């Protein structure tokens, strides 16, 4: 057998999405002598949730249109009294700079009749969504390569390397070779996305999820295991998406003024959020959809017939040209014309996402986690509704911190020993004593999420989930993986199960209801601001997870 690789770099970035690449580019801009390595599970020109582009740069404080304070108010409304504003403030302040950079690199921001950016409102307050077109991901990837960033594709990262009290790199799976590879670095950025495969999708396909299915909480699990803190895992997100296709559209439809109607054609949000209507925080909207269905007034749909042709054309260009352009084929196959037809929407599976919700790693204004040298950005970082601009802003912030600090590897780093340990894990998976395909294992934990963790929640159901999945945590070490691709799927399933269990623990701990549908507890139906207007934190303790209120700090 060939010797496993050990490679050294100054700044190791895990995940080549917009957050990771923005960090890599910024680090090289500031410090051209810094060696920057991006480990990417797929191939950077198309990888991750933004692989096919985005129809808007959501969350930009455009001067003259909105202010950072207004942005914080909007995010605070969505966070429902739990916002810790440090990260959101940084995003608000940096967001317009991100836009200008993307524009300079070649991203297309269409202009409105007044010659300015097309900025529309999706949030409860303020206008922060800027229309964008073009091959976003290819543009950022090309820029990273131009800046001399080293990119290592097809290398999913499986665990972090830590020395004494400090981060020291990561171990990846070299998919081509089927072997582990070690990357030693004094600074590491986790930027590997959200956790999409948590609940079971109604599409019937394990990868037919709303959020990018190839990101399944690996960064969150690795970070937690290294000592970082998680938050917001009781915010079990769901979205209202086009039936069957499960594709993006909600924010596009709402920001351009589509109406959400029930089977009788009534704009039912009048009943649940008469002032905000469709722009109510999504948890409120999901709860309203659920109530309408239960009252026999479903199915619900978006309608567009009242909108002028130019707005319909803008919506079509948004959903047909970027993000999930196969939507065009889907609409054609169903004979849907927005001018005439409603688009029926259903609630997606439960997912956990730091940029689309509240669930992620805890970081400060530089994206620093509790572990020295370890940063997070993008959907794995808790950056409430930071979306794409938030991902890139926090990537840049982390890079600035890394470029400005003296970099030294920690003592007590043992990459060779850890590689041997990982080789041993791989051997065990090749033997696969469990004799259960990973797809079946994944189906099971996700089915259990739908039964016991998805709202409405209750103490007994959440406890049942934790109990039922205890054996699965042991079983996962013996999942069979005859080839490297399946091995990657095994680690994705481990991460998904981990995140689901964290969601159950946090949901059990928060004995109140909050965030609309997302944390609706049948056994604690009221919101209790006196005790719970704070974040719920999760951290590895000596005897298992510690769960605590941020306001009170970590229990001693």
């Amino acid at each position, binding site marked *: 057998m060939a010797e496993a690789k050990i490679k050294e770099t100054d700044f190791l970035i895990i995940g080549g999405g917009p957050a990771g690449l923005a960090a890599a580019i910024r680090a090289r801009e500031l410090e051209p002598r810094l060696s920057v390595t991006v480990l990417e599970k*797929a191939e950077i*020109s*198309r990888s*991750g949730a933004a692989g096919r582009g985005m129809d808007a740069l959501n969350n930009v404080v455009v001067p003259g249109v909105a202010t950072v304070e207004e942005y914080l108010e909007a995010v605070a409304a969505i966070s429902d009294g739990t916002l810790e504003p440090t990260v959101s403030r940084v995003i608000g302040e940096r967001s317009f700079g991100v836009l200008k950079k993307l524009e300079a690199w070649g991203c297309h921001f269409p202009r409105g009749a007044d010659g300015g950016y097309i900025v529309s409102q999706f949030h409860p307050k303020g206008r922060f969504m800027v229309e964008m077109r073009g091959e976003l991901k290819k543009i950022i990837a090309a820029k990273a390569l131009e800046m001399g960033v080293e990119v290592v594709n097809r290398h999913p990262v499986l665990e972090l390397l830590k020395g004494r009290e400090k981060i020291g790199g990561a171990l990846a799976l070299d998919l081509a070779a089927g072997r582990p590879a070690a990357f030693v670095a004094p600074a590491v950025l986790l930027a590997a996305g959200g956790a999409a495969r948590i609940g079971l999708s109604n599409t019937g396909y394990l990868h037919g999820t709303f959020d990018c*299915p*190839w990101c399944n909480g690996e960064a969150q699990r690795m970070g937690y295991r290294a000592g970082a803190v998680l938050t917001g895992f009781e915010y079990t997100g769901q979205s209202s998406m086009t039936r*069957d296709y499960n594709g993006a559209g909600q924010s596009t439809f709402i920001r351009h003024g589509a109406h959400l109607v029930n089977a009788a054609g009534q704009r039912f949000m009048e009943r649940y959020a008469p002032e905000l209507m469709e722009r109510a925080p999504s948890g409120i909207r999901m709860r309203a959809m659920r109530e309408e269905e239960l009252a026999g007034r479903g199915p619900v749909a978006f309608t567009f017939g009242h909108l002028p042709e130019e707005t319909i054309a803008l919506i079509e260009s948004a959903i047909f040209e970027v993000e999930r*352009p196969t939507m065009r084929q889907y609409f054609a196959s169903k004979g849907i014309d927005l001018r005439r037809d409603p688009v029926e929407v259903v609630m997606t599976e439960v997912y956990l996402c730091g940029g689309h919700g509240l669930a992620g790693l805890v970081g400060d204004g530089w994206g620093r986690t509790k572990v020295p040298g370890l940063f997070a950005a993008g959907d794995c970082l808790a950056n409430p509704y930071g979306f794409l601009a938030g991902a890139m802003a926090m990537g840049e912030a982390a890079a600035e911190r890394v470029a400005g600090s003296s970099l030294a590897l920690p003592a007590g780093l043992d990459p060779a020993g850890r590689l041997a340990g990982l080789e041993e894990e791989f051997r065990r998976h090749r033997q696969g004593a469990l004799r259960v395909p990973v797809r079946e294992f994944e189906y099971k934990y996700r089915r259990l999420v739908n039964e016991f963790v998805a709202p409405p929640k209750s103490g007994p159901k959440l406890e049942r989930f934790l109990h039922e999945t205890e054996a699965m945590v042991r079983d996962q070490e013996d999942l069979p993986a005859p080839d490297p691709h399946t091995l990657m799927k095994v680690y994705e399933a481990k991460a998904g199960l981990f995140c689901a269990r964290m969601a159950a623990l946090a949901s059990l701990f928060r004995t109140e209801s909050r965030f609309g549908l997302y944390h609706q507890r049948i056994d604690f139906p009221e919101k209790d601001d006196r005790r719970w207007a704070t974040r719920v934190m999760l951290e590895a303790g000596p005897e298992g997870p510690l769960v605590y209120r941020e306001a009170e700090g970590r229990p001693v």
Partner: protein
Amino acid sequence: MNLAIDYDCCTGCGACALVCPGQVLALDDEGRPFERYPDDCWYCGCCQADCPAGCIEILFPYLIR
């Protein structure tokens, strides 16, 4: 299967397999793309968009059609 690949027009350049974010596509011994892991497809359409000869079309799987 999620894709219709027109092998008469495919040049075997491998761009589709190179970019597929889910590693769904691979090249066979003759350099022709095929769906090695069809269950992992998100029908994102990257293969379709990046095929220089325009030989790939997304076919939605039955449950979604």
